[in-house]
């Protein structure tokens, strides 16, 4: 009995119950899908979507930290995914024939991808976070595009003499006979071992959720939200604005990097195109965040999953997918932010509340 009571009191505390429900949902979804797979019910098409679902969910959770909690709009997060994907895949390619245990190798690749994305986030954050609002958004976009374009001109090869680097073409790497071009400019990295799996994706998603939930319910999280709610007041109570902005942005970039690592090891060939690492991807992830609710991590995951699956399930709809996203996005923004609509809703909603109270009094 005591245990039940304790459990009930835990569930009453939203700070505690909210993450628990989210973790439970993710795990339950994982188990159901595993059963469906072993039952042979899941089509190949859907099975192929499982890892991308994890990638989008993780990226959306990470971006939500930046948009929902820090209150800064980044439209360059695909750039951090790009960094995570390429640095980790590069490491994997370099150590492919070293006889290292595959799992250990992937773990190291994961850490490298996350750290490099975090570093990119940190370095970009230092100048960018001095800017405000629209300017900040557009500069994150600019950095995202720069990262993607730079990746496309980088050539790195390796032969018996060591690594060779060029920004022109693969010929100017001057590789020996035994050499191999690992990064091939616009052709990207080829023949990467397929190491991302649904299980790994779910584990990474759970870790990302854990880090984000624990972070926002701590001293650091309160400081981050204080900056969002009122920067001047936060400064006046001695909160180091730059430090906490940078911290939140870096963690957000690191999580995007984790999503990138998953992406980089999911397909044999990794190339950077506007479709996968351009600002269109950043905007798609932003759509997940907005639709799931700013500051609502669970919502980000649900939105990412539903908005990816729905068009696939309703085949005829897939042409209209992007159009639907855009319309939903506009309507959601108007519904949630328009001063007139908010006033209307409050009148309507408050009216109901009052009636309810009256009933209770009676």
């Amino acid at each position: 009995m005591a245990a039940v009571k304790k459990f009930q009191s835990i569930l009453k505390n939203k700070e505690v119950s909210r993450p628990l429900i989210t973790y439970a949902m993710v795990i339950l979804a994982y188990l159901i899908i595993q059963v469906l797979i072993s039952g042979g019910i899941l089509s190949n098409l859907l099975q192929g979507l499982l890892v991308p679902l994890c990638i989008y969910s993780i990226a959306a959770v990470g971006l939500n930290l930046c948009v929902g909690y820090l209150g800064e709009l980044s439209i360059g997060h695909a750039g951090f995914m790009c960094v995570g994907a390429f640095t980790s895949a590069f490491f994997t390619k370099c150590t492919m024939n070293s006889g290292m245990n595959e799992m250990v190798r992937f773990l190291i690749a994961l850490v490298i991808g996350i750290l490099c994305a975090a570093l990119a986030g940190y370095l970009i954050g230092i100048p960018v976070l001095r800017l405000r609002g629209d300017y900040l958004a557009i500069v994150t976009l600019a950095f995202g595009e720069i990262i993607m374009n730079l990746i496309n001109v980088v050539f790195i090869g390796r032969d018996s003499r060591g690594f060779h680097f060029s920004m022109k073409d693969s010929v100017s790497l001057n590789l020996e006979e035994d050499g191999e071009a690992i990064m091939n400019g616009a052709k990207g990295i080829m023949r990467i071992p397929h190491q991302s799996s649904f299980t790994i994706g779910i584990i990474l998603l759970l870790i990302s959720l854990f880090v984000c939930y624990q972070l926002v319910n701590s001293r650091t999280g309160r400081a981050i939200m204080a900056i969002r709610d009122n920067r001047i007041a936060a400064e006046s109570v001695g909160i180091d604005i730059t430090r906490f902005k940078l911290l939140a942005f870096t963690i957000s970039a690191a999580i995007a990097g984790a999503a990138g690592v998953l992406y980089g090891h999911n397909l044999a060939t990794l190339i950077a195109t506007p479709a996968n690492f351009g600002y269109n991807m950043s905007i798609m992830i932003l759509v997940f965040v907005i639709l799931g609710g700013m500051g609502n991590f669970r919502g980000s995951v649900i939105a990412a999953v539903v908005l990816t699956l729905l068009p696939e399930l309703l085949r005829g709809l897939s042409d209209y997918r992007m159009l639907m996203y855009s319309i939903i996005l506009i309507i959601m923004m108007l519904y949630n932010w328009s001063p007139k609509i908010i006033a209307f809703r409050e009148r309507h909603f408050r009216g109901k509340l009052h009636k309810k109270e009256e009933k209770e009094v009676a």
Partner: protein
Amino acid sequence: MPLLEVRNLSISFGGLKAVDTFELEIEKNQLYGLIGPNGAGKTTVFNMLTGVYKPDEGYIALDGQDLIGMKTIDINKAGIARTFQNIRLFSEQSVLDNVKIGLHNEYPYSTLTGIFRLPRYHKMEKAMNEKAMELLKVFELDKKADVLASNLPYGDQRKLEIARALATNPKLLLLDEPAAGMNPNETQELMDTIRFVRDNFDMTILLIEHDMRLVSGICEEITVLNFGQILASGETKTVLKNPEVIKAYLGE
């Protein structure tokens, strides 16, 4: 030595002198008023004291420490906390969290400690909660600890701002029109609270106020600003009888 010493403080915006050779001396534990018509430069003085604006010239010292050129956060750490004329709460967070943000630097623990809920996290959070509730009790906000700050009535929001400022453990508290928008009863209560804070927290308080009842009721000394310049300063009663001061107010 006075707790706060301000000498020759001036700032101009676009060629206009907003504050001109402002001087101020506040002794420890004093309740000091800064009054004057709208646009006289009172809030600008606060903004210079807290490092929001950089004065063109002048000297500010708290407890002998030169504050000129310091950033807002460092000035807060040095011991000045403030409230705002147009209330600035962390509106999307609870009343309790607002005060806990004020306690940010008093009960530190690292981000990793927070993420992994290490023992220090529990220890600090517990201490923080106790301290915050203690402060809220002073302002009779303890029962509303879980309410979202933006849902508080106006008077409570002003009180919460004071509680949050006090949480940073300042030596000097700046209150920018604490009674604005309050009815006479609330103002009376606020006066008692301000006195209580001064006595129980051993606090020095500088306040901007338009409500003359409050000013004459609790301020021992005042300075009157008009068009950025000091019109008069000294003991409250004497200054309020000064014909120039009366003229400035009637002429408003």
